[in-house]
């Protein structure tokens, strides 16, 4: 390197001041925002470990004087939802049974649809995609009654199959959009090379495109797991009482009208229900960044 360029590389202009009024303002805002969102969580956590007596006596911000896991156990295994008193565990199992297949199927279907719409471009594929997109922006509610009638007609209403297929259908527009746009960014030459090599529709999908889409699959998993797990409306309508997901059970526990309101149990139940999406965020967030950083289509 010559002297001239070495000189150029030195910082120019006055040294920026570390602490300016604007900077303090930004930090203050961030701190307040954190407090705003963390406060309810804090209250929930401390309340869930208190006994009912203590909740009635003390300040809501105080730490429990005597830690009790009793509310958590109750919430999980014996809280009453209307007639039955089996706690949230039933709802948890139901939610897993609903979420797992819904997520896998909707991602597979979305990836396949996005793949065929982006790379194979058959006649009318753009129209189909437009319709699908429109579907993403239509409110759920208008589909509910027709869907109820259709499923009832084929005697599948209120079954696990019902709720899973409904989730797949409603997940499809966004999943397709996600994968179509992702596959559109894959160099078309990759697709051409595979065709020259003799790979067909399915081979290109499974051997080349799907392995490329790890980052997109992670995004899709985050979206779908949280979306399906947090769903309340569709679960209430389509799952049938025996298959009610955790969210519906939670509502029934919290809104139960009999006896005194067990705040500690309610809080524990709420945290339990929120645990899965939270876990997904924490775990997959790291993978998400890693997936993006790995560079999906490089080379």
């Amino acid at each position, binding site marked *: 390197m010559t002297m001239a360029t070495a000189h150029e590389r030195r910082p120019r202009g006055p040294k920026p001041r570390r602490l300016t009024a604007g900077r303090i303002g930004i930090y203050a805002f961030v701190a307040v925002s954190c407090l705003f969102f963390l406060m309810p969580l804090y209250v929930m956590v401390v309340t869930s470990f208190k006994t009912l007596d203590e909740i009635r006596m003390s300040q809501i911000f105080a730490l429990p004087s005597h830690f009790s896991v009793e509310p958590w156990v109750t919430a999980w295994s014996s809280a009453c939802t209307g007639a039955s008193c089996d706690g949230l565990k039933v709802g948890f199992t139901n939610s897993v049974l609903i979420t797992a297949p819904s997520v896998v199927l909707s991602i597979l279907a979305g990836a396949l649809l996005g793949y065929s719409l982006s790379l194979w471009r058959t006649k009318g594929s753009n129209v189909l995609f437009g319709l699908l997109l429109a579907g993403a922006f239509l409110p759920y509610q208008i589909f509910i009654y027709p869907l109820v009638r259709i499923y009832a007609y084929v005697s599948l209403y209120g079954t696990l199959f019902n709720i899973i297929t409904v989730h797949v259908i409603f997940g499809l527009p966004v999943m397709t959009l996600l994968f179509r746009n992702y596959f559109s960014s894959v160099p078309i*030459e*990759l697709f*051409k*090379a595979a065709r*020259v*090599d*003799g*790979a067909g529709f399915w081979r290109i999908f499974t*051997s080349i495109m799907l392995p490329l889409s790890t980052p997109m699959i992670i995004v899709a998993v985050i979206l779908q797991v949280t979306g399906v797990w947090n769903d309340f409306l569709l679960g209430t309508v389509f799952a049938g009482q025996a298959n009610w997901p955790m969210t519906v059970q939670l509502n029934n526990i919290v809104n139960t009208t009999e006896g005194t309101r067990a705040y500690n149990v309610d809080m524990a139940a709420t945290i339990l229900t929120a645990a899965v999406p939270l876990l997904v965020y924490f775990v997959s967030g790291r993978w998400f960044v890693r997936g993006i950083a790995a560079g999906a289509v*490089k080379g």
Partner: protein
Amino acid sequence: MSKIATDLGRDAIIAHREAASGQISVSVRDLVIRYGAQTVLDRMSLDIGRGEFLVLLGPSGCGKSTLLNAIAGLLDITDGEIWISGKNVTWDEPKDRGIGMVFQSYALYPRMSVEDNMGFGLKISGLPKAEVKARVAKAAQVLQIEALLKRKPAELSGGQRQRVAIGRALVRNVDVFLFDEPLSNLDAKLRAELRVEIKRLHQDLGNTMIYVTHDQIEAMTLADRIAIMKGGIIQQLAPPHEVYNKPCNLFVAGFIGSPGMNFLKGRLAIAGDTVAFDIGDLRIPLHAYERSGGPLVDGAEAVLGVRPEHISLGDAASGDDGGRRFRTPGRVEMVEPTGADTMLWSKLGAQSVTIRVSADVAYHLGDTITLALDLNRASLFDAKSGERL
């Protein structure tokens, strides 16, 4: 290299070649490609000989890649037929056409190792694992990428990636190789290196190769014949030296050569049998010019094309060469050294011309020189139609 080529089944290739009827490898017949209202190729016909290296050369948007993709079967054609090795493959899948293709962006499968990349097509076709491995190993040997077989594409340099891509086409023992601007993503040095390698590969394998590029050096160095395209039409289809020395129209003349051909605008002056070219007051007799048959009309506007190396510097009184050279005084207006040669700029009449001279002699601004135009090697074009006269 040649030993390995035999390993790769040269005998098989030759046997196959002889078995197939005729000497034509790829035949494009009345090909039409239309996207909506836009016609990219309009009734194009082109025959490519067995073992020929044909370069499709042209500016972007001229339809050269479209033609290549149509031959490969990667896009739907509107009308016409494509024949490869004596078989109508117009509606065949790319894999059934006996072609291998190399792309500009390498198009290696990112999640597969080099080995798997090269063997992918063979694996799909159901070849036994051992056979796939053997063929990949041979191709890797030819291309000197044996050490890279276990790597992923992301761990390779651009030149290495393109070698792998060529290897992927190589293992399939195909009749026809298609190259879609394979060197455009490489830096100048690597480009020259791989260019030589592709040429050697062609010499050793003897396959038909169709090569798309916008780089005239690649076209000149590699091609048996060059098809220069513009606006979906082949302007000239000829061996490199002919394209260079006898361009059929102004577009070809201007496209090939760097620095470009000098175009002198003027008028034809015809008196009896003698043809001359008037630039202002300057009259250039053209009896040394080899006519190409176009009609010569007295007073018609025309363009005289002279390549920079076909103008030499001499003194005004140098020996008689039968009027082959036309001499006129000039003055050095600019000096551009390029290393091997030096480009001089001068005026001829009122028009600027570039002259390629040896770099050994030093020229200075304002030097008085004598330009000697070699009219035997010049090109004359009709100014309106651009056709060679």
